[in-house]
């Protein structure tokens, strides 16, 4: 709005001009656009600032309180004792387990997402394009719990996966895998492998979308030029496609990584009794009533994601979002 605002005496109006308070207000906003801007921003900023940032700040504050081990009451005095507790071996174990899982889930999602994203970006046209779009959107927006529930059905000992493997005479493969130390368990639905599969399934669409967005920007003739110049498909992928898709993959990994770090429902329903960060937070604040330690635990994903976002920004991942 670069008009000179001074001579704002309106010509005969097409719509009946409202007088009184409404007209006065309208004129005021026209003369002082800053005031209008302020009034528009005030409600959302107040809401998010007070409700959200305020709560986050309160949480952070509580991580510097400590809990009295005898009475179980929260001692509201500044201390770093809770952070000391966080560094116990058992807790470090939880953090390490969660971060490893998040990294593996991110890697697997990237591998599964790439062909879908590439096909949708380069080959799908018209009706197929819309179909691909919905094919990614619908699972993304389907109920989170229903998706987990579906996997409980699939991975159950009596479920469809065991049935399918039995039909294919491959049960020995499943049994062999389940008898492995770290990844195995009694059945898939109570093994770390099960947790991993469900994580990949639930977060996969979050990886596909940014990778597809990045690949949409790669001109098709770039790939053709590469093969015209004698590169094998593998070389084209390594030297042309992958570097161009990387910002998209990093953008997607922000979601898969962050969501895995903070989730506590998937490992609780499909997995072992060994805790993840989210579960530790939940049990500390719930049954244990140790809000300071729970708060300190939440600082871990915030710090990890802070570094992650900083690195991602340097790689230009935000342009791919």
């Amino acid at each position, binding site marked *: 709005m670069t008009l000179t605002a001074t001579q704002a005496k309106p010509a005969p109006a097409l719509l009946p001009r409202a007088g009184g308070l409404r007209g006065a207000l309208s004129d005021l*906003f026209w003369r002082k656009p800053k005031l209008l801007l302020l009034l528009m921003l005030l409600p959302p900023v107040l809401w998010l600032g007070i409700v959200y940032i305020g709560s*986050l700040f309160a*949480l952070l504050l509580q991580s510097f309180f400590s809990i009295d081990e005898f009475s179980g009451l929260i001692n509201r005095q500044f201390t770093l004792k809770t952070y000391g507790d966080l560094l116990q071996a058992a807790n470090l174990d939880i953090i390490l387990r969660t971060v490893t899982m998040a990294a593996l889930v991110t890697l697997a999602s990237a591998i599964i997402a790439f062909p879908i994203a590439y096909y949708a970006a380069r*080959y799908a046209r018209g009706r197929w394009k819309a179909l691909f779009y919905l094919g990614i959107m619908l699972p993304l927006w*389907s109920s989170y719990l229903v998706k987990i529930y579906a996997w409980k*059905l699939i991975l159950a000992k009596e479920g469809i996966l065991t049935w399918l493997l039995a039909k294919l005479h491959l049960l020995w493969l499943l049994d062999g895998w389940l008898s492995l130390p770290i990844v195995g368990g009694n059945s898939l639905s109570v093994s770390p492998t099960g947790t991993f599969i469900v994580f990949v399934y639930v977060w996969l*669409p979050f990886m596909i979308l940014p990778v597809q967005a990045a690949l949409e920007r790669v001109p098709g003739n770039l790939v053709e030029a590469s093969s015209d110049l004698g590169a094998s498909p593998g070389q084209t992928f390594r030297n042309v496609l992958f570097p161009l898709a990387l910002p998209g993959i990093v953008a997607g990994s922000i979601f898969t990584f962050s969501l895995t770090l903070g989730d506590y429902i998937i490992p609780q329903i499909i997995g072992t009794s060994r805790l993840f960060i989210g579960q530790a937070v939940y049990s500390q604040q719930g049954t244990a009533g140790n809000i300071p330690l729970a708060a300190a635990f939440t600082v871990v994903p915030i710090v990890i994601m802070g570094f992650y976002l900083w690195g991602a920004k340097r790689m230009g991942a935000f342009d791919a979002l």
Partner: protein
Amino acid sequence: MRSDGSPSAPLGLKIAAACGLLFLHLPILLIFIYAFTTEEKSFVWPPPGLTTQWFAVTWNRPDVWQALSLSVRVAAISTLVALVLGTLCAAAVSRTQFFGRETISLLVILPIALPGIITGIALRSAFSLAEIPFSFWTIVLGHATFCVVVVYNNAVARFRRTSGSMIEASMDLGADGFQTFRYVVLPNIATALLAGGMLAFALSFDEVIVTTFTAGQQQTLPIWMLEELIRPRQRPVTNVVAMVVVLVTLLPILLAYYLTRDGDQIAGSGK
């Protein structure tokens, strides 16, 4: 010379993409079959028989209806709050350059970028510090906070496409600010708001992580399902509810897609 026709994809790529899409969709389809199974005690496949009796059983369960009604009320109010806040924010950010504009965008996106458990426990500890008892409104407070971003995303995309000269023309023709908003701005952004509102509704209707921290003893439908997943009471009823939830969330997504498909592909990006 550009050769931008539609070359056909290598077979390997086709197979990998098809497998990926099947991986995304088959589990959800399975829910539909399990809703009809006659088996009560386990998740046995293939189902020993098919029946529709569980629909009737579910229909007569008051706890399901209560949870559903709470979820719908929470989602409706949260969507309304998110619509107002998100539109105001989008209008301010897209119309003008001002100091701190980037910060505002970050502020809006943050509740969805940080893991839900952080939002949840932050709100809960704030409630306990301020001694606010859990109620309908504590759930709404949490939901509205992360719903703002969906409305905001849709509205910002539309504002970007609406040209500012239309507003100037309206003002030149003598409309005051309110009339311009009512007759020029609103019709332009209406479908984007509708789409954003529907996505916000779907998001709130489905949300469980933040809700576990802000609901106290109240049960929304996702909380009801979570209870059933941890301590199953009547598995067939859960199957039916799961199927209904899939159908109920499907409709707003499809509608939102059709409302925004020409141009802004923002509808769902970044749930």
